[in-house]
Structure formats: C-alpha cells, structure tokens
C-alpha cells in the first residue's frame, strides 16, 4: 500500500510538472481529499495542509486539478534560508526540502517497519518530524540554523515535534531516552551527508543498550554527483563501513528533483550491532 502511495505521488508530480507554468523557486502539491490514489485519512491530509498554510516559506497557494486529483498547489521561496544556512561553517547542506507528501509517505514506511521515534537530522522546517507526530510517533527535530529553528517553532502548534537548535554531531541523544529510533539524515551523501551521518553514528554508538537503530538516507542517481563505488545512491561505502543492512528503498519527489526525471531514493537501513 505504501509503495502504491509512493508511485501515485510520483505520477501526480510528473503530471504537475507538465502543467505548472509558475515562476516560484519551489513548488509542491498536496491532494485536497482522500481518494483511491491517496487513501490518507482526511484529518491527516488537513494537518499537512495546515503545515503548508502556516509555513512562511510558502507565499502563494491555489487549487488545481492535477490528472484526476484535486490538489492545492503551494508556491514557495527558500532563498533567505539558503543565505542564512551557508554562513554556518558546520552547516553541511543548504536547506532544500522534501515534499510534504513525501515526508508523510517516508514516515509512514518507517512506522510500518516498526520504528517508534523519528529523529530528523538537519530538519530544515521540520516537516518529517511534523509528519511523525501526525502518525502518532514521537519525534525530535535537530537543526543547526537558528533561523530555521525559529521557523519550526512557528509550526509546532497543534503538534509539537520538539525542535532543537543544535549541531547534530554534538547533540546529546541520550537525553531523549530513545528506545526504537530511526534517524532521517538530511542532505545527500555528496552534499555533506556522509560527514553529518558519520558524526551522528559516533554519538549514537556511545549510548548503551540502544540497538536495531534505523537510518534513512536520501540518495541520488543524478550524474551531476560522483557515484559511490558501492552504489546505494551515494551511500554504499558508508552503509558497508557501518555494517548497516538495507531494508527498503522508496523513491519520492523532493524540491531538488522537481525538474529531474528521477525522484529521490530514500534508503531505509538498520544497524543490528
């Protein structure tokens, strides 16, 4: 069911790309109502719309039928956040969000696998952590850029997804009392993701009795980036080195693949140490 949801979302995105003629820097769609293609509880869809409506990165929205799905199109601009994020020496990748619908589908898969806590590393506007709360998971959102954390704090009503302004490679994860967590690593492997993930691995290893930890890694097959000799969309060497097992990969639309033919592969892995 989740795989079908992801395929339908990609289909929706491709239809949207063909018809969209706006000039916004980023844009995405969220179906207005539950349907056969998007069998998402209406109250959850309403919360996704609420997140977009309250979010200052979106400056315009309008209703549009994309294929046979009535959607709201959200047009946004993240330039000022990009300008802020590049000034941090320890910031690994400039802010560029996944689609809100993609965040929801990815968290849905994490929940189905059995994780109970979502920790969004390099969380941007906190959309993954927000979606986790919609799906009744505990969530924590770690972001180094204080401008983005201020933005997140505007979005924590009605669901508090616990934003923290911190360098994820020095954050004290033992303070969260995690038991069955999955970490979503923001940033492609080639855009500082390896350094970010490696730093978080080291911190997590020092927590006793924390096992079967999940790691979700956003990859790319784009020829713009160097490939990893062990593949996995740029993450193969890191997966091998840290003895992670790949569980599943699911492709989903993101802001940075809007004009690309291939979506972003989210690689779900788990450590069994």
């Amino acid at each position, binding site marked *: 069911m989740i795989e079908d949801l992801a395929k339908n979302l990609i289909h929706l995105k491709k239809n949207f790309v063909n018809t969209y003629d706006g*000039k916004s820097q980023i844009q995405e769609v969220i179906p207005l109502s539950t349907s056969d293609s998007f069998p998402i509880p209406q109250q959850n869809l309403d919360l996704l719309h609420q997140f977009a409506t309250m979010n200052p990165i979106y400056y*315009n929205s309008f209703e549009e039928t994309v294929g046979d799905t009535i959607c709201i199109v959200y047009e946004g601009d993240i330039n*000022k956040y990009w300008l802020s994020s590049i000034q941090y020496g320890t910031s690994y990748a400039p802010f560029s969000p996944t689609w809100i619908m993609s965040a929801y589908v990815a968290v849905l898969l994490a929940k189905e696998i059995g994780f109970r806590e979502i920790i969004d590393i390099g969380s941007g506007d906190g959309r993954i952590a927000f979606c986790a709360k919609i799906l009744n998971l505990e969530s924590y959102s770690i972001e180094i850029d204080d401008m983005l954390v201020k933005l997140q704090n505007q979005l924590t009503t009605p669901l508090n997804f616990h934003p923290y302004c911190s360098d994820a490679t020095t954050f004290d994860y033992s303070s969260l009392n995690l038991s069955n967590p999955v970490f979503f690593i923001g940033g492609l492997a080639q855009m500082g993701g390896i350094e970010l993930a490696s730093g978080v691995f080291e911190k997590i290893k020092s927590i006793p009795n924390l096992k079967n930890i999940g790691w979700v890694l956003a990859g790319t097959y784009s020829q713009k980036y160097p490939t990893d000799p062990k593949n996995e969309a740029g993450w193969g060497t890191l997966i091998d080195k840290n003895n992670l097992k790949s569980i599943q990969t699911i492709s989903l639309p993101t802001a940075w693949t809007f004009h690309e033919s291939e979506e972003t592969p989210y690689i779900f892995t788990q450590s069994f140490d």
Partner: protein
Amino acid sequence: MSSFDDISQMFHSEYDKLVNLINSASTQSDLSLHDIVETYYQIMNMSSMITMLKQQLGSNDHKSLFGKIIESEKLISEKFNHTIHPQILQNLEKSIQETTKNLQSNSSEQKSKEEIESDAKLYEELRKKMSTKEFVEQYGKGLSDD
C-alpha cells in the same frame, strides 16, 4: 600545409585569443561571469598546449614557435597569475559580499509574489557568482601546488 605549420598556426591563433582576453581582464573591473570563465578556460587550454609542445620541441627547433611558447608562458605566469587572477578573485569576493548584504538587508520585509520572484533572480545571480569564485579558487590552488 605541413602538420607542424598547422600546429604553429593554431598556437598563434590561440595566443591571440589569450592576449585579447587578458587585455579585457586587465582593463575591465566588472568582467561578466561568462568572460571570467572563458578567460580561465583559455589559460588552461594554453597551459596544456605549452606543456605538450615543450615536450615535443627542442629549444633549437622551430625557433619562432618556441619563442611564442616562452612569451605565452611569461604572459600567463607574470601578468595573469600574479596580477589579474588575484584581482578577479578580489572583485568576485567584493561583489558577493555586496550582493549578500543587499539581500540580507531586505530579506525581512513583507513582499508581494512578484517581488519575491524578482528577488529570486538576484539569489540565482549570487549562486552563480559563488560558483564562479569556487572555480577561480580551484585555479589558484593549482598554482600553489605547482
């Protein structure tokens, strides 16, 4: 025309292009990003040709071409590397700082859809400047490794 004549003619023609680009770069403080990239590509192109030809030609062979090669080397090393390259880098840094400051100073204002989309072009220009600066810096790193 012999193969050597072809090579010699090509080298002279590339040298002329280089001189024109270097002259423009030394007289204009606001070179376009396109012109900056074109100039560096021509420098790299000429440097590769010089390396290759020096391996193939002795200083006593083809004196006219050899003289041009030495002249080109001198132009690149003395005029471009020591004077123009640092100036281009400095101008890019200054321009990036100014654009960044301008964008930061008006980023908190409430803006219309049209204003946001117009500003987006300035941000795109800033990204291009930063990317060009990285390219220019890479060239500089190559010089310090030599």
